């Protein structure tokens, strides 16, 4: 069964940004694309991914500058003769779309942080993936939740049952993210034969560029981070 046989015939029906991410486009448009990918990967991965620090920083700046420019122009227009209001309108729409994307990205991360705030803070890997703001948020969130649990019911329990640790001796009380969950992915670059389960007797899978698979997240998590595959 040749995995490679389905060649590139579907390349032209794939969305724009599935094609090569090169040339023609401006730097900003590439960043917007990257953010879009980061948002989707974040949305579909079971664990929190490294924060796109520079990307978010740069796009925030772009948004600020654009907002200021648009405000300025609007002010000028209200006093002077009306010209090209449609262009202004279109630019507003575009900036609105970028803002939406950025919010969707940050929100999908917040969702995961709230879901496992304590765990995220205690796990060295996940803690390192948070931005400074997210870290503060997680800390406050944990504090608030603990205070709330204390006052609402923990104080009424016998003393030895009151702790909210995720470990009880050697036993891990809170499960980590479900890394073994199934996800959909699109292979961007030829990855070649890849093991797709923990069991070495299982058949490996040929991940060719352009293929779409439904498989477990864990075996391919490094490929997501390296950008060889995208989650869908």
């Amino acid at each position, binding site marked *: 069964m040749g995995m490679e046989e389905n060649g590139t015939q579907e390349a032209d029906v794939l*969305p724009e940004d599935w094609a090569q991410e090169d040339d023609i486009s401006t730097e900003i448009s590439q960043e917007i694309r990257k953010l879009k990918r980061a948002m989707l990967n974040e949305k579909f991965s079971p664990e929190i991914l490294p924060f796109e620090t520079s990307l978010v920083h740069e796009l925030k700046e*772009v948004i600020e500058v654009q907002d200021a420019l648009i405000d300025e122009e609007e002010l000028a227009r209200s006093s002077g003769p009306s010209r090209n209001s449609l262009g202004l309108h*279109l630019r507003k729409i575009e900036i609105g779309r970028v803002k939406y994307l950025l919010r969707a990205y940050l929100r999908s991360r917040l969702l995961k942080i709230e879901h496992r705030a304590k765990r995220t803070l205690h796990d060295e890997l996940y803690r390192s993936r948070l931005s400074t703001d997210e870290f503060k948020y997680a800390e406050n969130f944990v504090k608030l939740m603990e205070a709330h649990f204390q006052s609402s019911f923990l104080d009424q329990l016998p003393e030895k049952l009151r702790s909210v640790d995720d470990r009880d001796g050697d036993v891990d009380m809170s499960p980590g993210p479900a890394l073994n969950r199934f996800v959909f992915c699109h292979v961007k670059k030829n990855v070649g034969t890849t093991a797709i389960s923990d069991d070495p007797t299982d058949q490996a899978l040929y991940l060719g560029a352009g*293929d779409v698979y439904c498989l477990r997240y864990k075996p391919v998590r490094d490929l997501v981070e390296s950008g060889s595959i995208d989650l869908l």
Partner: protein
Amino acid sequence: MEAEFLAEDEMITMLPLVSIPKMTFLQGDYGPLIPGEPIEVPIWFALALKRARKCKLVVPSWMEAKQLEKTVENERISKNRLTAVPYYYAEIASLLLHYASDDMRSAATVRRGVEDLTSLRSSKFRRYMQTNVREDCNGIKIENICSGELSAVRPVLCEILETIHRANDSGAVDPIKMQTQTQKSQGTQSTSIFSSSKPRSLRRFRA
């Protein structure tokens, strides 16, 4: 809604009704718009102009009534695999039918074509899942699936695969199974309830 947002970044050809000089956007320059001269722009851009009645949209070729008919026919003929359609076809079709049906020669036919295509594809896909999802599957290759189908099938398929595996894995902490595992490591024949199953292998979406 999010899929529609993403679909709006796809390109479409439009015929401007006004003339606007070249404009610089974050994602590049568009224009100049010259009345009647076709230009390729993102869908969100075209739709904004359309709402202001400043352009006519050129329906993408795959969405023309005739072409759709052919696609539906192909979809019907190729029993064993989904045919290639644009990834966001359903979203784009719904956007264009909603906002630009007056730019189509036969919006009703197009609408019907898209509906036929969607239901044909989804029933086909369901059938494949029925034959291809087995207890021993760790990865499924899916050809030519598109955005809408993916979000429809995601919760069901992922849940099923996980449940199957959880059932299998709970076999691993089963005392009998644990025993057989130690036996296995000693080279003895395994007698677990799952030992009868074939070695796990990949099932492809294509039958």
